[in-house]
C-alpha cells in the first residue's frame, strides 16, 4: 500500500519534471527539471528494491552527467530562448504520431503485463550479481561499449581542436618559477 502511494507520487513528479523540461524557456531550468526526472526515477528503482541501481543512477546521471550539462550552460551563459509558434508540419505529423506511438506502446505493455507477476524486491540486483553479469556473462558487449564511448570522446577532441595552421596558440605568460 505504502509502495503504491509512493510510486504514484514519484511517477507524477517524474512526468511533471519531464513536461517542465520541455516547457521551460531557460536552459538551466530545463537541465534542473531533467535532474528531478532522474532523481525520481532513482526513487522508483529504490521502491523496486534495487538499491544499488538507484544510487548508481543518482551518482552517474544526476551527479556526473547533469553537472557537466549545467556547467556547460553556465559557461556559455545561454539566455532565455524565444518562443515560436512551431511549425505546421510538426503539428500535423507530430500529434497523430505521438498518439499512435503512445497507444501502441500502452497496448503492448497492457497486453504482455500480468502474465508473470514479480513482487517488488524479488530481483534486488546486488552489486555482486550485477558485477558478475557485467564482467563475466556480458564481458564482450560491455568492453565494446566502452570502446564506443572512447571513439565518441576522440571524435569530440578532433572536432574541438582547431585545424592545422588556422590559429596561433595563445601565448601564456611563463609561470612563476620556484613555486612548484
Amino acid at each position, binding site marked *: 500500500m505504502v509502495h503504491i502511494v509512493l510510486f504514484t507520487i514519484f511517477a507524477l513528479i517524474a512526468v511533471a519534471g519531464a513536461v517542465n523540461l520541455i516547457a521551460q524557456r531557460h536552459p538551466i531550468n530545463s537541465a534542473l527539471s531533467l535532474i528531478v526526472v532522474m532523481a525520481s526515477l532513482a526513487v522508483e528503482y529504490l521502491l523496486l528494491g534495487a538499491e544499488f541501481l538507484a*544510487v548508481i543512477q*543518482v*551518482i552517474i546521471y*544526476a*551527479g*556526473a552527467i547533469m*553537472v557537466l550539462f*549545467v556547467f556547460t550552460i*553556465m559557461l556559455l551563459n545561454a539566455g532565455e530562448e524565444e518562443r515560436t509558434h512551431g511549425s505546421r508540419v510538426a503539428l500535423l505529423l507530430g500529434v497523430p504520431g505521438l498518439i499512435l506511438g503512445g497507444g501502441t506502446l500502452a497496448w503492448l505493455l497492457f497486453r504482455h503485463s500480468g502474465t508473470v507477476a514479480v513482487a517488488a524486491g524479488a530481483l534486488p540486483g546486488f552489486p555482486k550479481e550485477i558485477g558478475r553479469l557485467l564482467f563475466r556473462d556480458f564481458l564482450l558487449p560491455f568492453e565494446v561499449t566502452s570502446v564506443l564511448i572512447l571513439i565518441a570522446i576522440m571524435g569530440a577532441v578532433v572536432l574541438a581542436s582547431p585545424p592545422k595552421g588556422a590559429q596561433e596558440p595563445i601565448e601564456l605568460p611563463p609561470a612563476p618559477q620556484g613555486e612548484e
Partner: protein
Amino acid sequence: MQGTVSLTQFVVISILKIAIGLGALLTLDAYTVLAERKIVGRIQNRWGPSRVGPFGLLQPVADAFKLLFKEDITPPYVYKPLYLLAPVLALALSLCSIAVIPIGNDITIRGYTTALQITDINVGLLVILGITSIGVYGVALAGWSSNNKYSLLGSLRASAQMISYEVALGLSLVGVLILSGTFSLRGIVDAQAGTWIIRGFNTHIPQWNIFPQFVGFLIYLTAAYAETNRIPFDLPEAETELVAGYHTEYSSMKFAMFFMAEYANMITVACLASLLFLGGWHGPLFGPPLMQALLPVFWFTLRVFFFLFLYIWIRGTLPRFRYDQLMAFSWKVLLPLAIANIVIISLVVALTS
C-alpha cells in the same frame, strides 16, 4: 533489520533517531566553528573568541543570533528561484548524509534493539558518494544565479574541482571495498574488528584498513579536503582573488546556510574517514554495562574529533594552491596513484585468497 515492530513503532523510533541525529550534527556543526576559531587563534598566537560565556563556549549562540537578525538582502538582478534554492539545497544535502552513518553497535532499550544509525542500507557508502556528487549543485547554482562575475568564477572553479576530486575520492575507496567486500558502512566496520594475524602470529595491531590501505587513506584525505572546499583547496572562495566566491552575494541566514553546509560536510567526511580506515567504533571496552554500551560511541567520536582537528590544523598551516596546480594534482598525481593502489590491492587479494 527490525524483527517484530509495527509500522507505528518504526516510524516513531525513526523520527526520534532523526531528531537526535540532526540535533547532534547541528550542535557539532556550531562547535566545530568555535573550535576552528579557537585552534586557529592558538596557531596564530592569539586567544580566539573568549568573551561570550566561559572560555567563549557560548560564542556559537551569539553567532547564530547575529546571523539571524542581520538584514537579509536579495540583490537586484539575481535569478530569484535558484538564488533562494541554492543555499537550501547545499544545507539539506549536507545534512542528509548523516542518515546512513553508524556511530556504534546495536543497543537494546526495554527489549527493543535498534542500530545506532538512522538507517542501515546495503549501499550506505554509495549513498554518501551520491549525496556528495549532488552537493555540487548548491554551489554551482549559487554562483550562477547571483549574476556576479566573482560568484560565477567561484562556482565554476568549485564545480570543476569537485568533479575532478570526486574521481580520486571514489577510486581511493575501492581498496577498502575490496578488503571488506561490502558497501554497507556497518559491514565495513565489522570487517575491521580484531587484530592482524599473520601466519598464525598475533601482531596485536588492530585490523584497521589504514595499514594495508595507507596510500588509499592519504588519497582519500586529500580528495576529501578538496571536496569540502577547505584550505589548501579553497580556491572557490579565495578571498584575495574572488571576494568570497560563490557566496559573495549572500547575506544573513542564507550565508549561514552555506557556512553550516561546509562544516556539516567536514563532519561527514571525518566520520567516513574514521569508519573506513580507522576501524569505526572499535576500541577497548570495560566497566559496567552502561559504560560498555556507550564506549563505542566515545571511541568513534574521538576519531571524528581527531580528523576535525587535523582539518583545522592544516587550515592554520598550509597556504592555498594555485588553480592549475590544483587541477594537475588531481588528474596527474592522485588519479594514477589511486588506480595503481587498486591494481596492487586487487592482485594481493586475488593471490592470497
